């Protein structure tokens, strides 16, 4: 086998594998990408019920309610709009009212966000970048302290 031929085989194999990988990536991207939405996005975009997305914002003060069994209800806000959330399961350790949260799930027909995951974090001052960005847009959060500040009048 000559050098040229060997190179041909190599290139063909490489293109085959890369083609396969590209196809897999494109198919997977189609199905498994989840968009991030703030409560204001949810209000303005009229999200279809059943469409999965990530909801991020602050857990509104005084909104946490334990329902029956392991079900919990809370509300996520960016101080402009608020979305009610229902979640079955154990809340992460650093879940607190007034702090940033990201949860994944979909809206039901009545506009309540049914979450199947509430993302945990390791550090109470950590704010997921998307939440930080959307809160900054609303002027709610300045960064640094990790705590929300009152919206300027």
């Amino acid at each position, binding site marked *: 086998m000559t050098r040229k031929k060997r190179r041909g085989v190599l290139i063909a194999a490489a293109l085959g594998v890369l083609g396969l990988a590209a196809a897999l990536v494109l198919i997977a991207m189609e199905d498994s990408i989840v968009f*991030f939405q703030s409560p204001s996005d949810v209000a303005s975009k009229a999200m279809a019920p059943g469409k999965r997305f990530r909801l991020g914002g602050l857990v509104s003060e005084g909104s946490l309610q334990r329902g029956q069994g392991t079900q919990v209800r809370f509300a996520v806000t960016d101080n402009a709009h608020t979305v009610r959330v229902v979640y079955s399961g154990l809340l992460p350790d650093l879940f607190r009212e007034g702090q940033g949260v990201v949860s994944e799930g979909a809206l039901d027909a009545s506009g309540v966000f049914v979450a199947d995951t509430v993302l945990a974090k390791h550090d109470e001052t950590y704010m997921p970048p998307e939440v930080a960005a959307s809160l900054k847009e609303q002027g709610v959060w300045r960064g640094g302290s990790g705590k929300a500040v009152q919206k300027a009048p």
Partner: protein
Amino acid sequence: MIAETGHFALILALVVALAQMTLPLWGAWRDAPLLMRVATPAAQAQLGFVAIAFACLTVAYVTSDFSLQNVANNSHSAKPLIYKISGVWGNHEGSMVLWVLILALFGSAVASFGGKLPNRLRALVLACQGAIGFAFLTFIVIASNPFTRLSPAPFEGQGLNPILQDPALAFHPPLLYAGYVGFSMAFSFAVAALIDGKADAAWARWVRPWTVAAWMCLTLGVAMGSWWAYYELGWGGWWFWDPVENASFMPWLSGTALLHSALVMEKREGLKIWTILLAILTFSLSLMGTFLVRSGVLTSVHAFAVDPARGVFVLAIMGVFIGGALALYAWRAPLLRQGDLFAPISREGSLVLNNLLLTTACATVFIGTLYPLALESLTGAKISVGAPYFNATFVPLMIPLLIAVPFGPMLPWKRGDLAGAAQRLLLAALLAAAALIAVASFQGRGPWMAPVGVGIAIWLMAGSASEIGFRVKAFRAPWGEVARRAVNLPRAAYGTFLAHFGLGVMVLGIVATTAWRTETILAMKPGDEANLAGYRLVFKGVAPAQGPNYRELVGLFDVSQGASHVTRLAPSKRQYQARKMTTTEAGIYASWSGDLYTVLGDRLEDGGFSVRLYFNPLVRLIWIGALIMFAGGLASLSDRRLRIGAPRRAADAASAPAPAE
């Protein structure tokens, strides 16, 4: 005073790194041996100064010197000693010092043990190491100084983040960094080879042990991180395809590819240009891992609060090194002489396939991890790419690779015989098929991936064992001869066997726990019972307890199986006083068949507790497999060929300390 000494030592290390970077390079340019020789003492001095700085920081932590901002923010006088020490690298500034310390260690190892390396090559390698050290020391001194004083000094520190106060996490960062930084050796050798315009088998024989050592550390580091996440976070999972996890997994994938392609280069002088590119890419991915974790640009469940300005600095360092190395590669790589020819069906061919699949898989992980970032900066849309993406892209690429693994060592160099190899693997194939059929009929209507996965795992284990069996003539020669052959077999062969066998063990654990885990979330009151995977759990209630620096609420579960009592589990919720932070401690019962995993949740309004129960079948095999792979690396490093450096004197290895020239 100690802090000032440490700070001063860092600045001296910076100056020495500058000398280590420039003088040998200038010497290589002017062909002045004396200037090139400066590299050796410079590398050793750099290690000395960085070690002094690290020791000073450690002393500040152990003595709880809260006049240092870094110590005050991350330590507490009531912390057990081991966490005071691990607190040194449990924060951004300290971990960067550890990074540079490991870099200096590797650099001085080349300086001390590289006496037989050609002077020019050693000088160039050390200059490159010096450049990396210089960049990161500049970063530390300018943007992330661990020795900043605080005035007035507080009486008490804020404590280390409680979830980091854990034995596995005390050693996770040093191992991970040893892996990341270990690949800088391969990078520096690659850059030196490009500048020099030549790379031969001796070069590969030098690079391989470093790559193996780095790969071992990274394997253990990633496994330890996953083990920690499994038992400490209370989520019951062992891998989440989180950006921070992927950041450590990508260098592992490309490092594994490098390990195999360097083999071709060492034995056959083939794949030179590719191996050098892989060496550059692997270290680039390590730098990117450091950047992703330290900058916080991606949403991660493992992220800590970060300072974006520092991210930009690390990004700049990354840009200079990756860009510079790739430009050098584009310019100089065509000078390298091509290797020997080989047929597609051969040992070389199988290693090329290995590389192709590993790097492609690495690329899909890369795309999934960075696509959200790219999309956001281009269109502003914020998305996340989760586990479904990685399962749909990474897993299909791994299956052909895993099936091909046992064939590799069976094929001879240059030209192989696939039918012959298949014949020798017949027994392994039969075993795998039997396992597949047994699992499929036992499982009934479960996920189809499970029997296939178990079949692949058995195929890997039996296939890698067949290679050893074939080489020692097991069942075909008298036992005396088999034993003699087994003793004489090179350790590298055992290394290959262990690494591939460990991979099989790991695959078995992954498949079993993914396919057959059971999980329930319940609201339980004291006296309630739950049944899970044949176990009966009785919730006895909760009791408060006091630890050295936390208070906890412990739930008590009596576990029984049939009539016999098995164990008591005590998952707890800890409240750390220093940070007012709560952590979850899972209660885990480990048996051969799997882990019973209990998590205590919040108190409910009716006096009960929310409780999460899992049964994770065979989950421990994942980490046992990683340990076996690590042992494979050790066996490979202890091979005679590396110890005595045959056939060429110039190719001595790190494990044999030789006097410097």
